[in-house]
C-alpha cells in the first residue's frame, strides 16, 4: 500500500491517487496523428524506474510526476505538475 508524497497534502495512501500514464505517452493536442498514435500506443513499460503522471484524485486534485521503480515500488522523485 504505497504512501505517495503529494506535494500539496504530504504523504497519503495510494487509495487517494490515480495513475494516469507514463510521461512518454503524453499526446499533445497539436501532435501530428502519427506521432500522437505512436505516443499513445507504444510504451517503454520499463521493468525498473519510469516516469509517471498521477493525480491526487481523492484529495486535493494535484497532478504529479512520479519517478518510481516498478519493481521495488520505491519513489525517487515527485514533482507537482
Amino acid at each position, binding site marked *: *500500500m*504505497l504512501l505517495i508524497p503529494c506535494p500539496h497534502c504530504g504523504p497519503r495512501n*495510494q*487509495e487517494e491517487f*490515480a*495513475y*494516469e*500514464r*507514463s510521461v512518454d505517452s503524453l499526446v499533445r493536442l497539436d501532435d501530428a496523428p502519427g506521432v500522437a*498514435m505512436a505516443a*499513445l*500506443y*507504444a*510504451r*517503454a*513499460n*520499463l*521493468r525498473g524506474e*519510469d516516469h*509517471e503522471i*498521477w493525480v491526487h484524485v481523492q484529495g486535493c486534485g494535484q497532478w504529479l510526476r512520479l519517478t518510481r521503480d*516498478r*519493481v*521495488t*515500488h520505491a519513489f525517487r522523485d515527485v514533482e507537482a505538475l
Partner: protein
Amino acid sequence: MAKTSFAAGRYSALALLRGALGGHRHWGRAWRAAEPGGPYDVIIIGGGGHGLATAYYLAQVHGVRRVAVLEKGYIGGGNTGRNTTIVRSNYRQPQLQRMLDHSLRLWHGLSDELNYNVMFSPRGALFLGHSDADMVKLAERGDALIAMNIDAELMTPDAVAKLVPLLDMRRDARWPIEGGLIQRRGGTARHDAVAWGFARAADNLGVDIIENCEVTGFLRDGDRVTGVTTTRGDISGGRTAICVAGNSGHVAGLAGLKLPIESHTLQAWVTEPVKPMIDTVVMSQSLHCYFSQSDKGGIVGGGDPDMFPSYAQRGAPIRLEESIAQCIALAPALSRLRMVRSWAGVTDMSFDGAPIIGEMPLAGLYLNGGWCYGGFKATPGSGWLYAHLLATGENHPIAAPFGLDRFASGRTVDEAGAGPMPQHR
C-alpha cells in the same frame, strides 16, 4: 486420435495400479531437463502455459520439432501458476468469441490429448445481473454468443438460486440478483497441470524445455532476429517467439521495441478449504469480483487489478477488501470463511483489452502477449494459433484480428469499450 506413447510411460489407472505395487519407482521424469542446443527452427521465450502449448502444437500439428522453450525460472511459474483457473468463451466481441471458443473446444479434449489430467471441469461460468439493465446486457451477450454457435443460457432468479443456493436472493440486497447468464461449457481447470501436461507432451515430441534460462538479448542480422542471448549462452533459431505475458514489455524492450502493453498487478485470494459449497464459477455483470470453489475446497476469488504499472508481483490490500466485500454481498456465507493466502501476478495489459498475436517490426521476431487478466482460459487456443503463425509465417484467420497493426489502423477490439488506458478496464 492414435494414443501417443510416452518414453516415461503413459498415464492411466492401470499404470497407477502398477505404481502402487512397485512403490511408484517406475515413473520417470515428466519432461527432460534439456540443455540449450540448437539451432532450432523455433525458439519460444517463456515456459508458461501459452509457450508450452505453442511448442506442443508446433510439434504435434505442424511437425516442427526442433523447438526450444526457454524459461527464466521454472515452467508455469508466471501467470499460469497464479490465476483463478476460470475457463470460458462467453465474451461479447466476435473476434474474441471465435478465438476463445476455439480454445474452449480444445479444453474439452485436452486431458486425453495430453494424457495428463488437467482437471478441466465444465461446471459452468455464471454471470449475475443485478438490475434490469444488467439483464439486458447479459441477454445481449447471450444472443451474440448463440448467434456465433456458442452456448449461453439466460437464467431466472429462481434458476440462479437453485444453482448457487448461497447467493443472497433478497430483493433489498445491495446488489439484488435479477438473474444470470451461464455458459455451461465453461468452468475451471487445474492451472499447474496445464503447464506440466503441455510440457510433458511437448517434451515427448522432442521439444527442448530449458528451465533457468533467462533471455538477455536478441541475436540480430541487420533487421532480422536470428536467436537470443541467454544466461546459459547464445541460442540461434529460425523464428523467435516472445510468449512472456506479464513481461512482454521488458522482453520486447531487449529488442528495442515498444508495445501497446503495460504491466499491471492483479491479485487473487483463496480461503481455507471447506466441504463443497459452490459448484459454479460466479461472476457479475456490473461488479468487479468473481469466485469459485477449487477441488481442494478453498474458495478462490479476485477482483480489479491494482490499476498502475508494476512488475512487483505484489498488490495492495485495498483491492482485496473491495473484491471480498463484493463477494460477501453476493454470497453472505463467505464472510465466515478465512482467507489463507493472497497472491499477485503481473498482467500484460494491452491497450484495447485484447491479446496481440503477430509478427513484430523486426523480421523473424513474433509476439504473443497482451492477454490482460484473461490469458489462462486461452492457453490451448493461444498456443494453437501461435504455433500456426510460427509454422506458416501467417496468422490463422482466427488470430488475424489480433495483429499489432490494429492500433495504428484503428481496428482495435475493445471488449470493455474502455479505451486505450489499461487502468480503466
